[in-house]
């Protein structure tokens, strides 16, 4: 007689269920963000190296392929932002007496901070 039957777990388990697939997408957004940060670090390195190095790197960043990458990275970053803020109430539990502050309020504070920070950064960089 054989013992209990163990069902195999295929390495494609995350393709079999919509929630698992979205989870995997969420985790992989970090790859796009990290790749972007490496490109940003190179931009800073070239800026330090001098005018010619900086301007040629800006031309490289302006190529259609690089802009396409950044559009995809922006979509990934936005997905990260939304999933991160929506999960924050799971970690941060604030109680007022017996009542737990509702999750939408905690997430809402995050979104408000996000709008303020984004506007501030954009203003500092673009004010000219």
């Amino acid at each position, binding site marked *: 007689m054989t013992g209990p039957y163990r069902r195999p777990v295929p*390495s494609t388990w*995350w393709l079999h269920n919509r929630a698992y697939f979205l989870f*995997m997408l969420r*985790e*992989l957004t*970090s*790859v796009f*963000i*990290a790749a*972007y*940060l*490496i*490109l*940003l*670090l190179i*931009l*800073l*390195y070239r*800026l*330090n190296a001098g*005018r010619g190095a*900086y*301007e040629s790197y*800006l031309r490289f*960043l*302006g190529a259609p392929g*690089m*802009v396409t*990458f*950044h*559009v995809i*990275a*922006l979509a990934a*970053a*936005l997905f*990260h*932002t939304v999933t*991160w*803020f929506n999960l924050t109430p799971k*970690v941060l539990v604030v109680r007022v007496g017996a009542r737990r502050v509702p999750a939408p309020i905690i997430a809402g504070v*995050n979104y408000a*901070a*996000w709008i303020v*920070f*984004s506007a501030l*950064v*954009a203003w*500092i*960089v*673009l*004010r*000219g």
Partner: protein
Amino acid sequence: MAGTREPFWWSLFAAGGAVAALLAPVQIALTGIVIARGWAGQSFTYDRALALVSHPLSRLYLFVLISLPLFHWAHRFRFTLIDLGLKWSRALVAGVCYGAAVAGTILAALVLIRF
């Protein structure tokens, strides 16, 4: 001493995730799209960019912006590799991922300190 260092890595992951959530979209849109396509006009010429980045607060901002989300990536990628069925030892996966984030952090410090 604590038996596990997981709380340390998790705290860097959490801080990096928060920084990325707050700042990655606007940063990517600015340097990757607006400035790269030349839509920013005169606001990001070499002289302006150099002046802006040379400010100590800018460099501190950029250091945090680059370093913490790299640890966020390292933490997630470490578990993603395991989720996808990588059969390396768990310690090796962790070492490679966090090691890459440490290397990125050192590079960021070296670049930013020279302005």
